[in-house]
């Protein structure tokens, strides 16, 4: 597909994410999709496959963030099968702390589906505000169902 077509797909995904809707994203993932959080934060690694993305990245993130996760696209830059998205998060933790990270996401598509998502962000902010993903899940499991 052309860069323009890929850009349109990614714009649609991010327009929904700006409205806290991740459905178009999840519907666009290739079977062997991988999501890489770059750097050396506690969340930094490769999440290989949709199941790993949901269970190991999105689940702890949702456990930590109050309400739905919101990511607002700022600029899209596309060439060939790659679309770069500068974006800004607008979120609050369940403890009431602001979590407004900035992102540069490098997305690779194939046949209209997302194959790879490389996320660059302020990793120091990730650790300072989100802490350890295992702790986020444990805290959510221990207190909030009561």
């Amino acid at each position, binding site marked *: 597909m052309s*860069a323009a077509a890929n850009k349109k797909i990614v714009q649609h995904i991010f327009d929904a994410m700006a409205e806290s809707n991740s459905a178009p994203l999840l519907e666009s993932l290739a079977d062997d999709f991988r999501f890489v959080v*770059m*750097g*050396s*934060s506690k969340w*930094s690694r490769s999440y290989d496959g949709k199941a790993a993305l949901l269970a190991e990245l999105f689940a702890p993130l949702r456990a930590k963030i109050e309400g739905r996760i919101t990511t607002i696209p700022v*600029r899209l*830059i*596309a*060439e*060939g099968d*790659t679309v*770069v998205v*500068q974006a800004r998060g607008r979120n609050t933790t369940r403890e009431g702390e602001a979590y407004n*990270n*900035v*992102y*540069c996401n*490098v997305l690779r598509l194939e046949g209209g589906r997302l194959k790879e998502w*490389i996320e*660059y*962000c*302020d*990793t*120091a*902010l*990730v*650790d300072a505000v989100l802490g350890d993903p295992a702790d986020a899940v444990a805290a959510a499991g221990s207190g909030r169902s009561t």
Partner: protein
Amino acid sequence: MSAAANKKLMENIFAGIREGDRSLFIASLADDVTMTVTGQYSWSQTFRGREAVVRDLYGYVRSLLKEGRRTLPFRFIAEDDWVVVEARGNMMTKAGERYDNHYCLIYRIEDGKIREIREYQDSTLCERVLGPFPAARKQATG
């Protein structure tokens, strides 16, 4: 200039940088270039003007590192005035610690000159290995 020409310029700049030659990079900076280190850590701010970028940011980084620091690009993505460069650092501090950061750099180019730079990097690694950016060198946050 076209996206292809802008991309070629950045490829040429990084061909120099990967060999430690930053002369084309410096010559390609517009007088009023702005460089934003994104995020909320101690290095996050906007450096305004060529002197601020070269002296206050890169000059300070250079003072912390051994000679022979390299930044190795591995992907260029260009559209219109924008060129994105993903790169890996290959550096050593003067104290002998490795500093191999990951970078995503976004350049806006107008008439063959770099007008705007945004840097995304592993801030955890930057703070841990290079330490906090000195408060006395801070400019207005952008």
